[in-house]
């Protein structure tokens, strides 16, 4: 908590220095919290990755063995690719569909408030509820198969068939992500002053050209934000595989966070889990950097 200083003045210091300190003090609580609960655990995780630790007996130094073990573990590689498939399988459609949604809602449409509400409802649903409702809907005897059956498609065991389990989860990810990123795009669209579009129309631009040359360039920061956030949040997904498939069948939905959780808490190999975590972090870091670079080149104001 920000300290109560009644009547404190720093008369001997210049205004500049005083403001410097004040700024730092404002940021201090957040920094302290993040150091204790984010940076330090991060460093600890890095340190643990060089030890063998089973949670119950004291850690034993192990050098880079954990990294070697992780690298040689086919289950790790499987999980890595499952995560990559999931991340891009969810994010890329989100980028386009959320944008389309925002464009749609930005037009004057009758019943707009109602439509808006309907699209935004998935944001209000808790993660665990999403997982349980969809698990229920994907049951071989459940709604999804019934609807598909009406169109003549046979009964598929969505969550227990290797080819369909991950796509089933990806669909949920998209379903949940579109409203959230749609809101963000919508907010971005609404902050573009009308004058820009009007000027473009005056210059003879049609709707597509207006989109390409006015809207998108102006929206680039938002687009960048959505791209980065959607990938990062897809990378973190954990609850759905945990509750719905336990990483199966045959590991086809075992995303990397799940692999880490399992290795740490079920198999009691904390050091290996930490090593795998470091790989995941490095991947996320690299991915974000690449995205920032790519889009910076695309011209951010």
């Amino acid at each position, binding site marked *: *908590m*920000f300290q*109560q*200083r009644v009547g404190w003045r720093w008369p001997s210091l210049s205004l500049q220095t005083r*403001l*410097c*300190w*004040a*700024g*730092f*003090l*404002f*940021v201090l*609580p*957040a*920094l302290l*919290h*993040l150091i204790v*609960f984010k*940076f*330090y*655990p*991060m460093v*600890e*995780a890095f340190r*643990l990755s060089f030890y063998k630790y089973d949670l119950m007996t004291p850690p034993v130094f192990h050098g880079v063995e954990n990294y070697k073990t992780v690298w040689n573990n086919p289950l790790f590689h499987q999980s890595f690719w499952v995560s990559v498939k999931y991340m891009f399988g969810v994010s890329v459609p989100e980028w386009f569909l959320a944008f389309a949604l925002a464009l*749609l809602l930005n037009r004057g449409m009758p019943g707009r408030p109602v*439509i808006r*509400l*309907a*699209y*935004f*409802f*998935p944001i*209000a*649903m*808790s*993660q*665990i*509820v999403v997982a*349980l409702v*969809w698990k*229920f*809907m994907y049951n071989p*005897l*459940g*709604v999804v198969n019934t609807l598909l059956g009406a169109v003549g498609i046979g009964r598929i065991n969505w969550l227990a068939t290797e080819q369909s389990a991950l796509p089933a989860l990806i669909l949920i990810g998209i*379903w949940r992500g579109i409203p959230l990123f749609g809101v963000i795009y919508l*907010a971005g669209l*609404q*902050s573009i002053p009308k004058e820009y579009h009007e000027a473009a129309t005056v210059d003879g631009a049609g709707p597509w050209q207006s989109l390409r040359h006015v809207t998108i360039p102006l929206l680039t*920061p938002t687009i960048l934000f959505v791209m980065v956030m959607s990938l*990062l949040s897809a990378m973190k997904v954990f*609850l759905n595989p945990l*509750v719905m498939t336990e990483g199966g069948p045959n590991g086809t939905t075992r995303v990397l966070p799940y692999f880490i*959780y399992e290795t740490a808490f079920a198999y009691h190999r904390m050091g290996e889990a930490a090593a795998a975590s470091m790989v*995941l*972090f490095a991947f996320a*870091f690299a991915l*974000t950097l690449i995205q920032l670079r790519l889009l910076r080149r695309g011209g951010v104001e």
Partner: protein
Amino acid sequence: MSSRALSLWGGRLLTILTIAGIGVTLLPYFWMLSSSLKTSSEVFELPVRWLPREPQWSNYPAALSRGAFGVYFFNSAVVALAVMAGNLLVCSLAGYGLAKFRFPYRELSFRAILSTLMLPLEIVLVPTFLVVRGLGLVNSYGGLIIPLAVDAFGIFLMRQYIKDLPDSLIEAARLDGCSERGIFWRIILPNCKPALGALALLTFRDNWDQFLWPLIVASKDTLKTFPLGLAQMEGIDSAAYHEIMAIAVIAMIPTAIIFLFFQRAFVRGIALSGLKE
């Protein structure tokens, strides 16, 4: 085809797609509500029943009695509200400091703060747990709340928003002899309402259904949050979907209310924060 006809058909197609989209979006909700009112055998009846023959309102009290759900919901509320309050306070403090002040390593601090967004909890779950244990906070409300009380996203949001506030306001207050603390409480915060609103909503929603962290930190039944209660219920008797759905419906009420009543403020808050790099 003339461009007018094209746009007419385009408009119709759009309407159809919109309605279809709404259908897909709302299907899980409808299914959740409908199932919560069915009997246990109707739930998996073949062919699928869309609506219960007779709404089983008794599912709700029955479901609630399957675990100490009163306590669980209370805990979820406490966690959500406390984490929300923590975020609102600390993130706006930090956002202000980063937006309107100059001090050495300011940009570095900001980037470091942002980098924590890349850390999913699962990666640092164990070390964070060890930290919490070291602080003696395991199995307590403190352990549930404090580690979540600050998130870089909130700092980011507030910084973006505060950056756009006019410097003149602040300088005028300084000239009037206002203390820095006073400026924050009396000038900055009141002008941040849309962003604070958006942050409050998002933080509440994200923390209302905390699952993983309470799973690790809380073992006392009296500390569990409702997702743990739900998972437990499903793990024990996953065939009791009608009751599981009843709890799910109840769990949706707070966030649904918030979104129904505050969605406009929410969108404005995000919009006005600009989200520029």
